[in-house]
């Protein structure tokens, strides 16, 4: 006996509980499934904001679909698999949609863990909500038995071509998320070939992508329409889309007005029967109506009035972009006359709408619309042959690539660790690599002419180990300091692995990272890089407890946002070794060399996988490259240099507007913030401490005594309201005991001898000078 396949539609529109065409389509799909005899168990996952609950759902759909609701909340102490904690929602700073996508992954993964395994999960394309789930599936971390699909409705990236909104880094991030979701999904569904062609052209998606899109005509009507009413004596001109730039209400008003002037015999009205989400834009659009024609323009409500207008009017759809346009099908079925913009992908010659047969088309201009309306006025009642909905793809099992092996990878991975005076951290770095259980790993330590005393014996020991028979460790010593890029390139040249992992000598990786990345690259030959979410730590204790004070989250290949912000990945990533046959780290870049490489890779069409869980642990330490003050101006210079030296033409689909959102001009650095002042009492305490350290036992004894005393009756060990730091103390960490002592004495002096306090302070300051 076979069990019914199970499908989950992720949507934030659902008719009749929300407005919007996508919600109507989902509604139709659910009812169509029921009409087809319930071949599939349908589930709908909506956000908590949608005004629907199970009783209301049951009232509309009966048992045709099960409702699930997800809420956006920061998960509490969430833990990913294999020693890789999850980053909290607050870490997703690229855009809120990234965090929402992460949350959706958590919700769906929790359903799967509870045994609710779907055969198909379908996301809409807009806002890239499927991004994290798709990455997780590709990485083999979840949804092993589930096909993850994305349906083309209309991405913000696509709409932006027709409906401009101010570009920002956040919007760029959403667009790149959407692009990734469309590119990386196992299956993409579109309703018409022309819509796929528009995506390929405008978003710069590859032709190979287009050839794999599933074209499937959906159920455009929820029920069999009644016979059309007899044609009315006078037809009104009807705009039933939405007052929004991409829908071109301006074109409707101008074309209708011109038509009224050209055809004085026409006595009908022009009616806008639709919603207007932006009142200011609505006013602007209505202001286009010539004063003398105002009586002939009307705004109607929805519901029955709209249905009546669709059945009796000349329905104009001037939209620049539609992925399907249910209004046109509803009007056609109801008996309306259609006037359609032929430039819109939903109405091209391959669509059911044929010029002269069942509609009048125009070229997207005012004049063209006026002439089309003239033709429509004399047209007979159209008969659009609406295609019957096809059997949805989800009724058929997924093709073989959706079910992949979970066997461990047999590929060799070369771990390239670059070191320059970071030997003191090398043991932990090597230990973190050693904790990985991937079977075939070689470790190449590239020492870039370290000079620190602590490094020498460690490197000598590594050299001896490298000379042992059967050793998997190699040491490459640069005779002179070559810089980070050159050191990495040297390591890569010497690597014998199929994949290379780049790692700095002070950072660590999770025990699962190598195996996970190698398996993911094995399973996904079309991808070349696996980058990880990064967790920032300060001490090894924090790392052992997986307590991160910050995170960095990434999108992977993000060709537009990547021009101004590195959301590709952190410096540590697993690459196919073959990538470096065509590219290398730019040895002229003193920093952001990883960003530079990623940008070049992304613009050459190389694709990245991004782990949701934290597999890379970044040590924040005094003196690290990122901690060293790279001023805004210095950073801007570097980015300028990166863009200026970009070796390739910008690929199609990249948003040039991104360059308007880069860093401030390199020549005009902002004034640096004032240096934090260190209180006098701390300076004195530091000096006293130095003196006491001359006799170490006395120093230790004094410290222990003060510790005991302060623990019983002293001040609190933390002062969170103080934001400045000293070289010896980072705010937020416990204060050194000497600081606590002088704090106590200072407070005592202030309270008991308030007059003496400022005098003493001045005197000590003078003494200090």
């Amino acid at each position: 006996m076979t069990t019914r396949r199970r499908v989950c539609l992720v949507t934030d529109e659902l008719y009749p509980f929300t407005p919007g065409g996508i919600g109507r389509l989902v509604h139709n799909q659910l009812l169509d499934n029921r009409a087809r005899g319930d071949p599939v168990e349908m589930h709908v996952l909506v956000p908590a904001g949608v005004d629907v609950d199970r009783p209301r759902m049951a009232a509309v759909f009966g048992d045709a679909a099960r409702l699930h609701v997800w809420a956006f909340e920061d998960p509490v102490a969430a833990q990913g698999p294999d020693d890789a904690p999850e980053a909290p929602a607050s870490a997703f700073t690229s855009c809120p949609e990234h965090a929402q996508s992460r949350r959706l992954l958590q919700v769906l993964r929790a359903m799967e863990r509870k045994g609710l395994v779907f055969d198909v999960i379908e996301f809409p394309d807009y806002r890239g909500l499927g991004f994290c789930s798709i990455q997780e599936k590709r990485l083999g971390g979840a949804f092993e038995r589930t096909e993850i699909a994305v349906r083309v409705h209309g991405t913000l990236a696509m709409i932006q071509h027709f409906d401009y909104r101010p570009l920002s880094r956040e919007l760029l991030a959403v667009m790149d998320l959407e692009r990734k979701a469309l590119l990386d999904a196992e299956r993409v569904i579109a309703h018409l070939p022309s819509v796929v062609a528009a995506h390929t052209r405008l978003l710069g998606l590859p032709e190979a992508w287009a050839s794999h899109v599933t074209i499937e005509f959906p159920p455009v009507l929820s029920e069999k329409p009644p016979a059309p009413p007899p044609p009315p004596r006078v037809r009104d001109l009807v705009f039933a889309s939405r007052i929004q730039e991409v829908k071109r209400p301006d074109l409707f008003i101008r074309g209708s007005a011109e038509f009224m002037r050209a055809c004085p015999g026409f006595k009908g009205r022009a009616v806008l029967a639709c919603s207007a989400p932006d009142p200011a834009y609505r006013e602007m659009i209505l202001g286009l109506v010539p004063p003398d024609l105002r009586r002939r323009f009307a705004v109607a409500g929805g519901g029955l009035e709209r249905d009546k207008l669709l059945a009796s009017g000349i329905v104009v759809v001037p939209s620049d972009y539609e992925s399907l346009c249910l209004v046109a099908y509803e009007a056609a079925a109801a008996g309306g006359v259609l006037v359609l913009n032929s430039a819109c992908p939903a109405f091209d010659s391959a669509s059911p709408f044929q010029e002269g047969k069942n509609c009048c088309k125009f070229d997207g201009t005012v004049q063209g619309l006026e002439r089309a309306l003239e033709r429509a006025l004399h047209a007979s009642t159209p008969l659009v042959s609406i295609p019957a909905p096809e059997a949805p793809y989800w009724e058929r099992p997924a093709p073989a690539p959706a079910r992949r092996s979970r066997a461990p990878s047999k590929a060799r991975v070369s771990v390239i660790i670059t070191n320059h005076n970071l030997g003191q951290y090398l043991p932990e770095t090597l230990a973190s690599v050693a904790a990985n259980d991937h079977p075939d790993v070689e470790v190449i330590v590239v020492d870039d002419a370290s000079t620190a005393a602590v490094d020498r014996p460690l490197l000598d020991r590594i050299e001896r180990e490298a000379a042992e028979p059967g050793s998997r460790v190699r040491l490459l010593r640069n005779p002179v300091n070559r810089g980070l890029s050159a050191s990495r390139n040297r390591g890569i040249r010497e690597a014998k692995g199929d994949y290379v992992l780049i790692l700095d000598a002070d950072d660590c990786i999770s025990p699962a990272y190598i195996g996970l990345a190698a398996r993911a690259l094995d399973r996904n030959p079309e991808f070349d890089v696996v980058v990880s979410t990064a967790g920032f730590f300060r001490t090894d204790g924090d790392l052992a407890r997986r307590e991160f004070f910050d995170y960095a989250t990434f999108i992977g290949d993000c060709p537009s946002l990547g021009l101004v912000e590195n959301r590709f990945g952190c410096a540590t990533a697993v690459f196919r070794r073959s990538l470096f046959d065509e590219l290398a780290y730019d040895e002229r870049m003193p920093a952001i060399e990883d960003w530079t490489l990623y940008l070049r890779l992304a613009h050459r069409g190389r694709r990245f996988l991004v782990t949701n869980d934290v597999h890379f642990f970044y040590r924040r330490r005094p003196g690290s490259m990122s901690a060293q003050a790279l001023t805004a101006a210095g950073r801007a210079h570097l980015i300028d240099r990166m863009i200026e030296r970009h070796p390739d033409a910008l690929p199609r689909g990249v948003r040039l507007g991104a360059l308007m959102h880069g860093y401030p001009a390199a020549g005009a650095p902002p004034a640096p913030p004032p240096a934090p002042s260190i209180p006098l009492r701390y300076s004195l305490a530091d000096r006293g401490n130095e003196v006491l350290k001359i006799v170490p036992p006395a120093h230790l004894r004094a410290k222990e005594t003060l510790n005991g005393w302060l623990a019983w009756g002293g001040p609190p060990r933390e002062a969170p309201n103080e934001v400045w730091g000293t070289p010896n103390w980072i705010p937020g960490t416990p204060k050194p005991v000497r600081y606590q002592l002088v704090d106590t004495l200072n407070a005592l002096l202030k309270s008991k001898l308030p007059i003496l306090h400022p005098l003493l302070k001045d005197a000590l300051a003078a003494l200090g000078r």
Partner: protein
Amino acid sequence: MSKVSTQSAARVSPPSPAEVTRPRAVSVAAPKASASWGERLSGLARELAALRTGRADGGAAHTPVAFKQGILVDAEPDRRWAHADPRFDQVVHVFAQEWFGIRSAAAYLPGRKLAVTIERPLWPVEKSAVLAAFREDRPSHVVVHTYGENLAVIARLLRRKLGARVFGVWHGSSAQFHLDHELRAFGSMLDLRHDGTLDGLACVKPGMHLLSDQIHRNVLLNYPPKLPAPPAGRDLRGAALVPLPVDWRKNFHTNVYAAAAEPRCRTIYVTSRSTRLRQVPLPRQVVELRHLDRPSLFEILRTIDISLNATLSECQPMVALESLAFRVPCLTGPLALGELDRHPYQRLAQVAGVDTLTELRAAVSRLLDLRERSVEELSQMMDDYERLLLAEGADRLGEFLGL
């Protein structure tokens, strides 16, 4: 192939705080030809750490900390004081390394022991090591002591890979539900029972079955530690122990002041620090001890006359059971353990008015009177109670597990 052998997993204990803050020497054996690359690289990393810390200028700026051992199979502290009972030889108790009281409770029970860290997720090699440790001598039953993500992972692993039946024991009470983490953890335990991960769920607080029909009706009993022989009775030494943290539920101050009001308590050991208040200073007799690990606690128990654990809410306090093993009477609040409460020893040790100084002081005096009058009589009373408790505890555990 697993890189962590069972033996090494069992042998290596988590670093103590002293180890964490102090550089330590690491002895490294020469790499064996047969060692996996991971073992060999680990050895190199340890050796480099030793080289680094051996230098005066090398380790100063940076203190190495080894990754904490995530699993400890039958670790010495978890076996040393356990009771033996062949009925439970195929039972494995799984518990968190970091939960001190629950670890003690599980450690004294008969059966094998698996201590799991809850401070970080488990590594794949550690999960493999768990399987390797139990593959030869497969457990029939796994008992998970309270909820933790890693504990649930291990429970599922042992059920799926080794076919063990899995049971849960909740070591809390409804009085702790004002704490979000307790409530969430209890809810997660119930989820495990509902989704079939757990074959049974029991508690150590009576009456919890009223919250869900999935909870075993009969309350389980904690065991005292097993000592080679109970200490012989001895004269009073004038010392009391109050091993309580300073919080509202644990009632630290009432216990300390009540002990101080009894003249025979000339020394009162406490394990918590409390802010000194000039008007109501902590009694002069108070001697503050640092956190006591189990061996240190047992050393203290050998030297005191009475311990005080009269808290405002309690399940089955481990201090009372540990005191029982050393034949040191321990005051507690009401425990509601049915027949056991009617034992003469419990009638002396349980106090109703735990937050009333006079009540508590009277109870202290009552126990010290008996001890002064006849230490043998008190010891026999406690012998008898321990026998009863162990027999009843084994019966209830066996009934819960179906053994």
